[in-house]
């Protein structure tokens, strides 16, 4: 048996909050809001409706409904006049493409129905980039964003392409001879053809300059590599090949540099074979990566440099190399020593990464990796990554030049400096002095609306493009729909300005044929979506004087004063590119479970010391005190959220919120963190956090539930324990009966189901699940799950069919605390309770995706008075919406709380003004799944429509179903392999093998529901 642990879902549960306890007994936290119409007594008394009137209304409405029902509305069927050959109505077409928004890359497959892109998934054939983040998963909705520009704009008024392009061209020609610059400012560009195009443009206009600006800078890493290896590049990492990983606040499971890291990391975490990497994380905020670590140590950002130095010294000592002349005094010595020992043992198969924007720290980290001979095995400099090319110095120089009147024209693509620059006021001042400003933004965002011309770019679903995210891997993006509006892609505009007759498609094709493909076929590259070529390994020698940088780090550590602010990006919103996507706004943050907000994360100790609290309200919602955050003139009022695991003395704030004029979902949600992102440094020292009056209402999921003392929901063990006894912490449950102790399966009132067609099962591996939440968004897109908005989420009426529960745990129990503290008596008790607060300081985290468990003995089915929910021969729990009368008995009887009630009509309802309330947004709906109406219960169907289609395809082709033919949307979106779906009757299926394994267990198996969803225990390598 593993150590006795305490688990808690929120600080309120840990503190045993009285309101929470009260709510735990109820199915719905909020009563039906009858108060809205019965609460107003004055109104009721003033109402003169008599009994007779009531009967009249009743009679009239019955008659009206009857008459209205007599007339069936005429429906039309309008076929194509000339049907495109490749379209069969009702059958989806998939196109291989590539996604890049200046920030993240993915090789994708786009699903189109009758010419409309409606879904997106990773291209698993591609050797790179098949893992999607929730943002990319949701990007399909941004195509149907009603705020997109429908025509080019000049000075805020719509114009036409011909005149706008001619105007700009005339001015560019005018500037051509002058010594003032014409600047093209873009985010990182990874399109090789676009780069060739820019070079050609540069050849034509000698005063043309290209500046690369990334909103979240990685310049420090690029500079460090330039100093270490003489090459300003980002290396590629292989987390799957590393046995020991030490991360200094690098959130590599999220969007640190490349999304593929998540997949690689999961690949190296195989509990069953014992081949499992060990992961240390030193960080101040509780990041997604930190929550997946085997050892997570909360440290201040200012101390990370010293930790790097300490690790360097420890390893250098073992390697017989000179150590750095810096002394370290830290309580973490033991942990650092342990990490360094592990790293040294895994020499050549280890990895140290850092998320800091401090060049010195990155250099020391490079030094550690060099000592460990990791270059060439887990890190490759010769296969460079091109996803981060931003140059902070160039951006600063540009702003200076703009203000100095040295820039005649600025053109911008995929950047929004007015929003993302800390010194956006300087940029605005500069922009006023520029003679011509052009934005290629698809929307009139903060920057574009300040520009003279907006030449709206196509959405990436409407564009041709190519990409080279890493050396040796090329991919192609093809349009999957004709431009919805009067937009053009910027490359076509450039080609027109250069006087070329060619479109960008031909341009890419020519470029690929000349420079990429060699003898390979263009058509097959386009079909596959990618093309790989070999990369020659080049020798690089590490060469840097680390002593100097170690001194710098020491200086930083000792001079850092006051509260430290560290920025992070959230799974849903990222840097705010997709802020107007309601799916992503409503996606709960994997750690804090908060939707529709960003906030200042604060440690328990700091909150207590400064009077911040998160009081729970009687309606189950959580409030937060407001803080005034200020730093060098930047100031904002922001709500505070107490975050277990946050290092005392530090606060965290997420980018991407506080957008203006971006759209109805994005505007006025949260606060903008970029004004604090000064000097492109992701840590700011000496920040003032001041308690101010007022409270903020958060909309959090999972807060209103407790575990009711059931600690077998999450089962975990350490790798060592697991290898010694695979059934550790997962012993089969037994029940005491009059016949003695019996296994659970023997004690049941239910008859067994015969299974002879299929038996669909889903296995979820808690060890591999990183909590990334891509599955939640995939479920939204596939199943037309409605967005309900912040108010409703606060009332615990979120509609997510699939939620990811997050459990904190700590092995600090009352007994441990007493023993550790060694105190006795009255004074001892005080100290013991002080120790007890530690659970919230260094909690371990488990993510547990929970959807309908498709119980084979389903409690919901027995209580439905109208048999709207019933069991299938294939092990699914079916839900017939049209039969449901909304008694909600099923939800009340569900032990997993996975049923969702449609309190309102969420489509065509102005009160829920999200994508289902406008014609454009509705185009994303999946035509194979019904949009549910008010008053019915809904829940995960295990994507029954996808299973039915897979079966039908097999029948039509006259073959047996193969393992992997049938998938659920969540399992398809899961790139870590945590979710395995299949037929349990097929003994050779992947699922069957996993299900038979020693780590399998059912959620709440003591209830005897016998679910079709099976979990695999969490194993930590510690």
């Amino acid at each position, binding site marked *: 048996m593993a150590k006795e642990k305490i688990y808690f879902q929120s600080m309120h549960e840990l503190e045993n909050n009285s309101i929470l306890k009260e709510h735990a007994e109820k199915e719905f936290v909020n009563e039906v809001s009858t108060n809205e119409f019965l609460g107003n007594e004055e109104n009721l008394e003033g109402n003169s409706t008599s009994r007779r009137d009531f009967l009249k209304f009743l009679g009239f409405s019955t008659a009206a409904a009857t008459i209205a029902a007599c007339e069936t509305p005429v429906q039309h*069927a309008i076929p194509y006049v000339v049907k495109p050959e490749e379209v*069969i109505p009702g059958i989806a077409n998939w196109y291989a493409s590539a996604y890049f928004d200046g920030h993240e890359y993915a090789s994708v497959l786009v699903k189109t129905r009758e010419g409309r892109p409606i879904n997106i998934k990773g291209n698993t054939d591609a050797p790179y980039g098949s893992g999607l983040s929730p943002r990319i998963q949701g990007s399909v909705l941004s195509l149907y964003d009603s705020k997109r520009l429908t025509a080019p704009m000049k000075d805020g008024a719509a114009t036409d392409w011909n005149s706008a392009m001619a105007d700009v061209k005339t001015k560019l020609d005018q500037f051509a001879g002058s010594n003032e610059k014409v600047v093209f400012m873009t985010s990182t560009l990874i399109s090789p053809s676009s780069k060739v195009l820019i070079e050609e443009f540069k050849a034509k206009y000698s005063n043309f300059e290209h500046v690369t600006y990334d909103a979240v800078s990685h310049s420090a890493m690029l500079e460090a590599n330039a100093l270490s290896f003489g090459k300003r590049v980002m290396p590629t990492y292989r987390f799957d090949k590393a046995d020991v990983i030490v991360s200094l606040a690098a959130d590599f499971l999220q969007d640190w540099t490349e999304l593929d890291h998540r997949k690689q990391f999961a690949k190296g975490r195989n509990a069953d074979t014992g081949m499992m990497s060990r992961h240390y994380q030193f960080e101040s905020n509780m990041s997604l990566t930190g929550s997946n670590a085997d050892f997570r140590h909360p440290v201040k950002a200012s101390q990370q440099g010293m930790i790097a130095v300490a690790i360097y010294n420890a390893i250098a000592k073992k390697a017989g190399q000179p150590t750095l002349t810096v002394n370290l005094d830290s309580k973490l010595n033991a942990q650092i020593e342990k990490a360094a020992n592990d790293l040294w043992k895994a020499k050549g198969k280890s990895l140290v990464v850092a998320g800091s924007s401090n060049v010195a720290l990155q250099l020391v980290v490079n030094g550690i990796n060099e000592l460990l001979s990791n270059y060439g095995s887990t890190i490759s400099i010769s296969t460079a990554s091109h996803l981060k090319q931003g140059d902070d110095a160039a951006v600063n120089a540009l702003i200076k030049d703009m203000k100095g009147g040295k820039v005649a024209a600025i053109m911008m693509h995929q950047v929004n400096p007015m929003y993302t620059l800390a010194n956006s006021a300087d940029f605005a001042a500069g922009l006023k002095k520029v003679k011509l400003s052009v934005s290629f933004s698809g929307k009139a965002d903060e920057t574009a609306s300040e520009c003279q011309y907006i030449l709206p770019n196509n959405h990436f679903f409407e564009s041709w493009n190519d990409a080279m995210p890493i050396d040796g891997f090329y991919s192609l993006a093809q349009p999957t729909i004709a431009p919805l509006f009067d937009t053009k892609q910027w490359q076509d505009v450039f080609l027109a300005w250069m006087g070329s007759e060619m479109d960008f498609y031909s341009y890419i094709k020519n470029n690929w044929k000349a420079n990429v493909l060699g003898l390979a076929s263009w058509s097959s590259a386009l079909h596959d979506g990618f093309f790989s070529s070999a990369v020659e390994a080049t020798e690089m020698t590490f060469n840097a004087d680390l002593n100097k940088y170690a001194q710098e780090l020491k200086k930083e550590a000792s001079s850092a004063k006051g509260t430290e602010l560290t920025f992070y990006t959230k799974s849903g919103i990222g840097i705010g590119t997709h802020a107007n996507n309601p799916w992503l706004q409503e996606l709960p943050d994997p750690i804090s479970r908060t939707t529709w907000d960003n906030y200042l994360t604060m440690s328990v100790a700091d909150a207590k010391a400064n009077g911040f609290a998160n009081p729970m309200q009687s309606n189950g919602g959580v409030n937060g005190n407001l803080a005034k955050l200020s730093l060098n003139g930047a100031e904002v009022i922001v709500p505070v959220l107490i975050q277990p695991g946050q290092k005392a003395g530090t606060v965290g704030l997420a980018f991407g919120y506080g957008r203006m004029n971006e759209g109805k979902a994005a505007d006025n949600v949260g606060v903008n963190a970029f004004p604090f992102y000064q000097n492109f440094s992701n840590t700011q020292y000496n920040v003032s956090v001041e308690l101010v009056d007022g409270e903020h209402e958060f909309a959090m999921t999972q807060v209103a539930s407790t575990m009711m003392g059931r600690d077998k929901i999450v089962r975990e063990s350490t790798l060592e324990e697991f290898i010694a006894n695979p059934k550790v912490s997962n012993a089969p449950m037994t029940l005491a009966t009059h016949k003695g102790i019996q296994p659970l399966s023997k004690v049941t009132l239910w008859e067994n189901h015969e299974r002879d*067609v299929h038996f669909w099962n889903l296995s979820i591996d808690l060890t591999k699940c990183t909590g990334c939440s891509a599955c939640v968004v995939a479920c939204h897109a596939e199943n037309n799950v409605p967005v309900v908005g912040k108010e409703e989420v606060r009332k615990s009426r979120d509609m997510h069919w699939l939620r990811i529960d997050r459990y904190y745990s700590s092995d600090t129990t009352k007994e441990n605390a007493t023993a550790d503290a060694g105190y006795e008596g009255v004074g001892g008790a005080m100290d013991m309770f002080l120790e007890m607060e530690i659970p919230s300081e260094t909690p371990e985290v488990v993510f547990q995706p929970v959807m309908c468990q498709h119980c084979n003995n389903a409690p919901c089915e027995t209580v439905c008075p109208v048999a709207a929910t019933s069991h299938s021969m294939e092990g699914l729990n*079916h839900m*017939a919406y049209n039969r449901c009368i909304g008694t909600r008995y099923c939800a009340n009887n569900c032990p997993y709380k996975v049923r969702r009630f449609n309190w309102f009509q969420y489509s065509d309802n102005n009160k829920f003004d999200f994508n289902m309330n406008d014609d454009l947004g509705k185009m994303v709906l999946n035509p194979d799944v*019904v949009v549910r109406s008010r008053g019915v219960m809904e829940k995960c169907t295990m994507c029954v429509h996808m299973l*039915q289609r897979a079966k*039908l395809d097999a029948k*039509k082709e006259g073959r*047996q179903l193969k393992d992997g033919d049938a998938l659920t949307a969540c399992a398809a979106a899961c790139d870590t392999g945590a979710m395995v779906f299949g037929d349990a009757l097929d003994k050779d299926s992947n699922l069957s093998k996993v299900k038979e394994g020693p780590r399998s267990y059912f959620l709440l198996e003591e209830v005897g529901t016998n679910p079709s969803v099976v979990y695999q225990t969490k194993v930590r390598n510690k």
Partner: protein
Amino acid sequence: MTNLKSLRLFFVSLLFTGLTLVLGTSELKAQDVANGADLYKANCASCHKLDKKMVGPALAGITERREQEWLLSWIRNSQDLIKAGDEQAVAIFEEYNSIPMSAFMHFKDEQILDILAYIENPPVVVKPGAEAGGVEEVVEAQGSSTSTLFIAILILLVSLYAVVKAKNALKSASDEEVVSLHVALKRWLKANPGVMIVLVVLVVIGGIKVTWAGVFDTVGMAQGYQPEQPIAFSHKIHAGENGIDCNYCHSSARHSKTSGIPSANVCMNCHTYINEGTQTGTTEINKIYEAVGFDPETRTYIEGYEKKPIKWIKIHNLPDLVYFNHSQHVNAGNQECQTCHGAIEEMDVVEQHSPLTMGWCIDCHRETEVDTDNPYYEHMNENWADKFNGEKITVEKIGGTECGKCHY
């Protein structure tokens, strides 16, 4: 139909013979018009019309415009004539875009003359109105079955009334007590309360039944729905008389959930050549041309034409809450289209044949056997052999009536 045609031809030829006999001027009197008609349809009609230009010129009056000798040699091999430099031949060749006419070397003089005879004596055009009348008649006949019953009951009641009246008149004549009909009925019912109860029960049950059938069974049901379509397309002509396979137009029925209303370009596969229908002449076919932008005069597509989609009226409307897949039934389930759609090949105007209610679906799923020969069922068959023991394996038995198979 063929009888009618030959009859018509017979009369036409009779008329023709009569005319020629009277006038006695035509040289073609000995020719067989019926044979000419057959030859014309088989060999000439794809490019020529009598009254209109098509690929080639309109042929009416050709015997007056050209010499017979010239016609004979032109029809045998026009290219020879052109090469020989015949002025007329070259002129006509150029006028019609230099498209060479097929050579008919195998034709005998007799046969060509038969064709020319047919051209000179075209068939009498039957007005479409005449046949439409026939259809109406059928509708009336169908409607009469219920009214006959009503009339019968009415006659019965009237005669009953008359009998009672007569009886009362007789009674009053013989000074007996006169009892009016309703008083008599009342008395009789009082004497027989059992009958009264039965009657009341019958009325109540009948009322419920009528309400049930009238309200609940038919709400949202549209069996027999037969809307007028924007183009009077006849399945009877296309699928019935011409025997075009359903899948030719509804090609996605085998692949997809929808059967697919054919796009206008599918119509054009045939209607590029067939510009005139038997029932409606050119009016309906012209609507296709209107949609796709085809000029029947020049026989070309109009460039830059803004295509006009045809707004068909959907007849079979399933509610959104149910998922139905054509390919599941047609392809995997081997069902005929007619099972649900009725004898579509006999319908001039399509109507909804089946009720499309859930009960109707379920009934069929309970009856219909699964095609267990499909290799998909291979590993299941082993289990089923024991489980069902030779019983019929219906769709229901493998889960075909579960909610989530159609509702999601």
